[in-house]
């Protein structure tokens, strides 16, 4: 196959609430499109094999390894990247909790962890520690910031739902806001999930 056999095809995507037109080749992944055409660099290549999670984005609200997802199959499902998580002047509570707990060193992995956590907490506001640990275990952090990442996500959970595990009201730093990562459609979420696994 030559590049000419794999021509660029126009494609409409919904990324961070904006409708955009891109021209990927058939073999281009969503990660390729985000980085090469849309200048969105928060999703990062780590392994391009679905093993590290540093390229994680949300497709229809579910985490997906954008390095494995052909751009052409994304279709109309809304894509959210880490750049689209904050509102002007206000971070998402998961982002804020990562800052408050210094849950990063080099921060290469950070967007992937944040998006994975956002998706989990949107679907399961009361996710247990074990559940969070399991869900975040598809993301790698070679700097080994895991202890603080767990602390941050647990804290973000309590911020977002407004209370701690024992039922006492959340009294930590400002709870922030929660922007839904998509208008959820469960069928789409399932498909994206499959791509992630």
């Amino acid at each position: 196959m030559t590049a000419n056999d794999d021509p660029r095809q126009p494609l409409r995507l919904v990324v961070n609430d904006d409708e955009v037109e891109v021209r990927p080749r058939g073999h281009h992944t969503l990660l390729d499109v985000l980085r090469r055409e849309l200048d969105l660099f928060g999703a990062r290549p780590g392994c391009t094999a679905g093993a590290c999670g540093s390229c994680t984005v949300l497709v229809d609200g579910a985490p997906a390894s954008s390095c494995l997802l052909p751009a052409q199959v994304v279709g109309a499902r809304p894509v959210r990247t880490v750049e689209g998580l904050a509102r002007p002047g206000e971070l998402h509570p998961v982002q804020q909790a990562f800052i408050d707990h210094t849950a990063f060193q080099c921060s290469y992995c950070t967007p992937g962890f944040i998006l994975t956590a956002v998706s989990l907490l949107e679907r399961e506001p009361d996710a247990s520690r074990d559940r969070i640990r399991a869900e975040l275990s598809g993301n790698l952090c070679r700097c080994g910031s895991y202890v603080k990442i767990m602390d941050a996500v647990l804290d973000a959970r309590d911020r977002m739902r407004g209370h701690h595990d024992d039922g006492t009201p959340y009294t930590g730093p400002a709870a922030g806001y929660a922007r839904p990562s998509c208008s959820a459609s469960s069928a789409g979420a399932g498909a994206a999930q499959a791509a992630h696994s």
Partner: protein
Amino acid sequence: MIDPRTKVAGGLPMLADLADVGPGLLHARLLTAPVAHARLAVDTAAARLVPGVAAVFSGRELEAALGGRPLRFGPVLRDQPPLAVERVRYAGEPVAVALATDPDDADEALRHVTVTYDPLPLVTDPVAALDLPPSGAVLHPRDAEPSAAFPEIRLRREPGTNLVNHFVIRKGDAPGALARADHVFTDTFTTPAMHHGALENHIALAVPDAERLVVWSATQTPYKVRVQLAEMLGVALDRVAVRTLYLGGAFGAKCYAKIEPLAACLARAMDRPVRVSLDRAQSLTTVTRHATRSTIETGVRADGRITARHVTAWFDAGAYADISPRVIKNGAYGFGGPYDIDDIWVDVYAVYTNRPPAGAFRGYASPQAAFAYEGQTEQIARRLGLDPRHVRRVNLLRDGSRNVTGESMTDCHYDTLLDVAENAFGREPIPPQWPESEVRGRGLALTVKGTNTPSVSQAAVLLNRDGSLQVLTSTVEMGQGAHLALARLAAEALGIGERVVSVSLPDTDVTPYDQQTSSSRSTIAMGGAVRDACRNLRELLARLAADHCGVPAEQVQVGDGRVRAGTATFGYGELVTVLRAGQLRCEGEYASKGGLDHETGQGIASSRWHQASGAAEVTVDLETGRIRVLRYHAAVWAGRVVNPVEARMQVEGAVILGLGSVLGEELGLDPAGGQAQRDLLDYRMPALSDLPEITVDLLGGPDDEIYGLGETAVPPVAPAVAAAVADATGVVLTDLPLRPERVLAALRDPRPHHHRDSSPGDRADYERIAR
């Protein structure tokens, strides 16, 4: 300073995001060799016809394009070509490169490159490789030129063999003392090659103009890369600039030139900007941690006191020397451990093989050495029927002891570190309620690690009219928190807020000289340079204020952001404004002294001795051989901690890296000599679900010296876990990683893991396993 908001928004500037470096950027794509050792013929003719392709080069063609000189690089020995020429020496070595504006076109071109490989003998065992005849099995028949990057390194080589370097320590009379010892134990330990695993892959961008070359690189060593590029291209140092952005992890993989030489050569050959960006498969074969084999012969008195030691170790350097000659020096002095041994000889050999080159790796040979010497500490205790903690206690280095290189030790904290490890999990006995098939145990380890010595760091501080302060430094920020520590030290030295201090990104055109960002040295060395610069700035402010106000300099006070001269008081920025000085600039320097005698390895090996202990609690499943680490406690002598949050995270990260090395990480070979692991699905690194409960002690106080923290906690992890496994099973495992099948094999037949000198310990082991 880095705003943490950029980190959580994915906006921290990293090189992979920098696409716009001028018109005509070409993307380079690499073809790598599938075989490990062969003569090579590359035909690029068809590839050059692919539409959209700007150029395709083999190694020969690249040399021809640049005037025909051989192109070779390497920080010590210039033995490595940017693209293989005539001969490929490891699977994964780049053999051809295609350039195009659209990387897809470059990929396409590579499909049309024809390479024929004519096999040469495969060399994979470093011990055997030393004795190979000089037929095709000597990887570098012609001796390479030395590099100006490390002019001070003296080598012990035999040209025409696979020996890269032989490092020697001769303290006392080890053979004599061994002959006189009550017991002599000889044990061999091995560790495998490992992948650094920084999530950001290697990347470099070279931008030429008529006279100079600007190279953007994700490197830990901008100044070393500059020397290496200048000498390879045959130009003066000022003709090359090296710049970095923030790095997505490094762990030693990004020390010294890796892909920068290729980017530089291509940019020169094309006279256009070129971007070389590796994928994971390529990063996996760019540089590794040395696989090692270490045989330790130790003489011991019946009470556990070590009287003599002779170590012979082989470090698999892979196909190119990289920094192996220096790694084995640190390995060699590491083998003494934190123990006081009067008579110790060490011989470490770095050997060429057909593996990917091995280089610096977080811990710098001390983890491999520690796994061996602490494993033997366990063996010795078991064989003599002693408590391993006791054996450690009676041998510890203390203030005034002479270490392995004959240096009189100061600031030794091993007794404390051992206490902490002993008490890490309280004294409560191990609870008995485990499933029948599982045994549980605890173990600990004590380790020592040096730092790059002698070394030099320089810094500058710029004071602006608004009172803001710029720290100019070539220290690379790669997640370790060095920039925050430097800002804090500067703020503290001048009595100003951290918020008004910013720290530059490295740019060899602008930021002063630094040896490198590695070896846990930046807070000490660059921190020292920054503090020196700030001291000079205070003096300058005092002098200027004295002149301006006409008061004697002694009557000027500088501190807390203010200058008080007689009755007048100025803010720092205000004084700059009043004096119309534009900006004030002061320089600072830190230089450590030391060095080892070439014949004896005696002298000052390190300006700091990084001391650590680790304690682990594990379960071992006797049916599956699976080890689970339940708890791990890391203690390091941290001295004065500049930045407690990030210091702790560095230690946690070091522990997690260590856990990967003990539980599963290993780069193996396939039958063709290729690396068996091609991606991160094959090469598994620890994830959250793999972690035990990790706790950390940073020992020291505000009045202590600053110590490095990036690596200190790595070396104890593997031996502490192995000691816990020995406690649980009675068997000391000698080969990393502690894979289940190895555990099972050892449990079935512990005999090979024990010494001929059979002792009560052996029998106890058998009984315990039989139960």
